[in-house]
């Protein structure tokens, strides 16, 4: 499969910039996810690569070839839509064979490739069915086979599992991951679900307001967000405004924070992942860096994790989050209204760009 290169891609609808000078390099065989909230431009970017949206400026290269102005049907891409978009009047086999038929591939050759593609998604026995006779997950697998059978230069997936229930979605994610790795497919996947992005991707591009804010491997965007938006979107839990304090430390209200890295410029915000904040009974010990005492406002149980919200004495307008495994003795013992002490390590403090 081919590399994909976006150079300063831009697209406006009316006066609103949907995609604002996006550049991205996707190596051959890589699985890249465009992650962001609705309206961030991720789908428009994907549709521009497919040719379904004409960019105002910038360039799209597939395998080094400039396809910015190439008609959709000449781009050799495989696209999977959220609503499957299977042809209801054709059998599963005819759906999968459609792209081959458009390429003038017929007869035994086409039949063999259709069978092979259906085997890939474990639907060999379903060739004669119509889409309406399949379940949602099966329909999406047919859509995947239909996109893969033409051996596209890149596989584009627009929130393909958005309509599936959680359990089925997880199974499909697993299947897609194995399939693309086995085939060495270059894939660009669009989703607003950060967990899905991390499970599937070699690298994640977090988008906001038409721009890519950060491109990194899953652990990179999760553990080391660069901007406030990424920190917030990746669910860090705590994003605090800070001022420069004494000797390289930072202050948020009356709380002193220290990071283990040096910033080029003193940051205006830091992020601390809620899972890395320890919540213990208050000790009344004197203030120290990377610790604060306060009152536990509530504890929200989400199954395997429990999140505590704490109002800080030294910064009364701030509530900080601490998250722990529900099974641990500590989380089980959290009492709403109790006096608690929060603490975190310097390595948990991420300095953010604005």
């Amino acid at each position: 499969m081919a590399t994909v290169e976006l150079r300063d891609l831009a697209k406006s609808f009316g006066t609103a910039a949907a995609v604002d000078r996006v550049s991205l390099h996707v190596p051959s065989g890589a699985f890249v996810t465009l992650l962001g909230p609705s309206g961030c431009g991720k789908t428009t970017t994907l549709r521009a690569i497919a040719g379904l949206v004409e960019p105002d400026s910038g360039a799209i290269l597939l395998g080094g070839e400039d396809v910015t102005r190439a008609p959709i049907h000449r781009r050799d891409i495989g696209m999977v839509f959220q609503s499957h978009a299977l042809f209801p009047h054709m059998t599963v086999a005819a759906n999968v064979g459609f792209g081959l038929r458009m390429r003038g591939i017929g007869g035994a050759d086409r039949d063999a490739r259709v069978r092979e593609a259906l085997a890939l998604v474990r639907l060999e026995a379903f060739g004669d069915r119509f889409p309406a006779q399949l379940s949602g997950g099966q329909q999406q697998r047919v859509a995947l086979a239909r996109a893969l059978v033409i051996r596209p230069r890149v596989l584009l997936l627009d929130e393909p599992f958005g309509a599936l229930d959680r359990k089925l979605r997880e199974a499909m994610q697993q299947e897609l991951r194995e399939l693309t790795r086995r085939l060495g497919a270059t894939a660009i996947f669009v989703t607003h679900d950060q967990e899905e992005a991390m499970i599937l991707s070699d690298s994640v591009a977090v988008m906001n307001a038409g721009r890519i804010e950060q491109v990194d491997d899953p652990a990179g965007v999760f553990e080391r967000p660069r901007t406030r938006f990424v920190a917030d979107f990746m669910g860090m839990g705590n994003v605090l405004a800070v001022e420069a304090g004494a000797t390289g430390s930072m202050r948020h209200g009356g709380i002193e924070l220290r990071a283990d890295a040096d910033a080029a410029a003193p940051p205006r915000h830091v992020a601390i992942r809620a899972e890395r904040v320890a919540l213990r009974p208050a000790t009344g010990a004197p203030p120290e860096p990377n610790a604060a005492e306060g009152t536990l406002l509530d504890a929200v149980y989400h199954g395997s994790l429990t999140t505590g919200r704490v109002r800080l004495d030294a910064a009364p307008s701030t509530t900080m989050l601490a998250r722990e495994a529900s099974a641990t003795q500590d989380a089980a013992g959290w009492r709403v209204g109790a006096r608690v002490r929060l603490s975190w390590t310097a390595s948990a403090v991420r300095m953010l760009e604005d």
Partner: protein
Amino acid sequence: MRRGTALLLLAPAVLLIAALLGAPLAWLVRFSVHEGQVGVAPAGALTLAHYAKALGDGFYLEVFARTLGMALVITLVSAVVSYPLAHFMWQAPRRWRAALTILALSPLLVSIVVSSYGWMVILGDQGVVNRALLATGLASRPVKLMYTDLAIVVGLVHIVMPFMTLSILAALERIDPLLGEAAATLGAPRWRILWHVTLPLALPGIAAGTTIVFSLAISSYVTPAVLGPSGSNFITTLIWQQFTQLMNWSFGSALAALLLALSLAVVFGYVRLLTAAGVFGGPGRGAA
């Protein structure tokens, strides 16, 4: 809803049809099997002679055949002309929709009589078309357009187009717009999307439209009478003659009953055929 309530709600429609369609139809059939009439009531012995006359006379059979042929041509032409219009309305921006719908319905906003006479202005020897032909030198003398089969086709297609267009549009509107995009990404240029995706999915609409239009065309009277060749060209004009000029209501009724039977037979056969082909219902027609 309980069954009883449903039946109760159906009652007005059923009664209306029974009173306004069923009763006159029964009266018509009664007329057709009586020898003659006294005033406006059937009279004389029961007989099938009128049917025997209609079916045994080559003249009437020929007019029936001509009428059927014309109705089929009109149905075909209106489908061919209406599809592009419906497709255009489907693709047009949403804000044009209201204006385009009114435009598409406009033939129904004018009385059939008025629009038929309107066509005379356009198709007559001194009409718009002939003047243009003469002025451009495409013809040296007026081409006979009025009082021809062509005039009937033109006039009727104009009138039945809204039914065809709106039937097709309704089918097009049910097509997921992503299907066209999916086909394009799979390598289909526009015309192949139309041929392999849009047209097959519009078939239920085309089927409904052709059924309606055929029924309207085969039983039309005003347009063939005003625009068509003089004399006996359409079975409906013959029926009109029997009733109003020859005062032979029994024979007119027999012709009318035969026309209805012909129309029903064609529509019934057509629907059976389409159902067997899976255009209505069928496994591939469910929501995907």
